Structures are given as C-alpha cells and as structure tokens.
C-alpha cells in the first residue's frame, strides 16, 4: 500500500492471541490514535464513480 502511494502507517499488523485481552485493547487504542493523527485518507477513496 505504501509502495503505491498511501501514507505510511495506515496499515498496521499485530499478532494477538485470543487470551491477550489487554494487549488487544492497547493495540486498538494505539492504532486508532495513530490513524486519527494521520487524518482522513484523501487519495485512495472513491466517493463517487467517475465515468462517462
């Protein structure tokens, strides 16, 4: 995604076991904060199809 021109940080991966509830909450908070900081994605969106 970043390779084709999406800002870094929009995609994040994590490995969380079903037993790791605290880690899950922690990661979700971190990711949402990071994305909020980036603001809305402006390039890779399709508000309306553009054709003839």
């Amino acid at each position, binding site marked *: 995604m970043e*390779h084709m*021109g999406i800002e870094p940080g929009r995609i994040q991966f994590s490995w969380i076991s079903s037993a790791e509830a605290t880690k899950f909450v922690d990661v979700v908070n971190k990711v949402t904060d990071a994305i909020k900081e980036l603001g809305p994605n402006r390039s890779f969106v399709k508000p309306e199809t553009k054709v003839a």
Partner: protein
Amino acid sequence: MSEYTESIREIAKRLLETCSVEMIIGFRKGTVPMMNEPHVIRNARDTGDLVWDSNCGINLANYLTDRKENIGILAKGCDSRNIVTHILENKIKREQLVIIGVPCKGMIDKRKITRMFNGEILEVLEDNGQILIRGNGFDTRLDKADVLQENCALCTHRNPVIYDELAAELVGEQEDIDRYEDVRKLEAMTTEEKWAYFDDLLKECIRCYACKNACPLCYCPTCFVDESKPQWVGKSQDAIDIRTFHFLRAFHCAGRCTDCGACQRACPVGINMRVFTKKLEKDCLDLFDWEAGMSLESRPPLDVYRPDDPDKFIK
C-alpha cells in the same frame, strides 16, 4: 535459440510415440511477426508444428492448471519455476509431467522493437544473437541483447530448475545483475510522487484482464474482481477501481511471482504492471531470502512460520 526446435521436435515425438505422455504443450509458429502461439500436440506425426525461438514468452505453466492428462511440457527457467509453484499449490501433480527443459537466452520485446521503427514491421528473424528486422522502409540488424524483454534482461534463472529432458545444453546464468533498480527508484519517491506515478501508469488500463489471465498464478475459479457476493471492487473504468484491481492482484502474487513477464507482455495497452509485483518480490528476497519456485522441497514464505521472522509484530 531456433536451433532448439529440432531437438524439441525429436523429444516430443519420442515421448508421444512411447506413450510416455498424452500431449505436448509447446508453441507453434505465429501468424504475425514476433508472436508464437501456445499449442498442444496430441499426435507424434504433428510434432513438426512445434517451434522454438525468441518469441516464446508466454508462460506455459498457465496451461497446466487442473489438467488430468499426462503431459509433456516445454519449460524455460521461469516456466519451470511456475511449474514448481503449481505443484506446490496442488494444481498439477509432478507424476503427470514430463518437463522438457529449455535453457533460455531471453525473449525479445515485441513492443520495444515496434516502437523503434516508424513503419510497420513485416518480418523478424534471428541469426546468432542478432535480430533481423524487415519492414516498410527499413531492413536492419539489432543485437538481441539490446531488445530483450525487461524481465529477461534482468533474469538470473535462465535454466529450468526442474526437468526430465533437456532440449539443449544448459546456458550460463547472468551474473552481477541489479534486479531492483526500478523498485529502489520508486521506494525513494515521496508518498505523493508514488501516488502520481501509479495514476499515470494505470491510466490506459481497459480492464481486459489479460495480465491476470496470462499469469500462471491467477487460477482462482472466481477472481475477486468477478465476485458479486460480496462485490469487492466496482466494475467501471473508475480510476480507484482500476488501481484496486491491480494492487490486489499483485498482493495475490506475493511470494509466488517469478517475474516471468507474462502480464506485461500480454497487456494490449503497454502497462508495466510488474512494478507492483517486483516490489513484493524484492521484499520476499530481502525479508525471507526467498525466490519463488526454486525447489519442490521448501514451502513459500506465506505458508510457514519462522521464529526468526523479521517483522516484529508477529512475535
């Protein structure tokens, strides 16, 4: 490479006559310059139709998917790597195949040559590393090395990695090749530059899907672009939909692509969609020291877990 033809015909004839295979998948001479047609031979008396030259760029592994017959198949380096991937992914069984290895000296780039001349090209022949081109108002010779397909010029696996027969002596592999100069150039761009680059790259796409259909990796019974329940991607000529198709397709080739160039070669409007797959290919090499289809013994990086995985999130 045209001297391979005789040897290929002989091997094919023998395999069919001894009933070692039911069919041979190879090429027959094309009807336009710089094109050959993938072709199947079922009878020993037809083996004279088989040809081999620098216009056999289609990846023949594409024609193996889910076949039930015993098959003799011609395989360049890249074809053989895709055959390995096909076997690993259970799309064909090794026992069904007699692989006729064809050590490859590279395929010529039809589009590049066409663009070099103003008039129409009428005939292209080869002679000892040289390409003879005759057309409306010109008659010239080029060094084959100068008109190779991009991926062939950068190829480091010209010899088949797996074979039962050989159509010729193995060739020397190209050394000191910098395979990823183009990818590094892209990596160095800013986010906005990257976005603009791909916008321009894809603007001619007509969604004929020749790239995915020429690709031996794209064998899903229903591609995600065709799926309607749910529908993943819009079907119009919208630029975002086109981009979604191309980059998702590339993802599906991660760790599997051999850079055989079939996609780029097939594209009717000349898009180099290899810039998507090459990035993934480079990452697989950098991160996992992995090149696709090199051996039947090792599993691809996306279906193994290693404690020394370079990505920290997975630990």
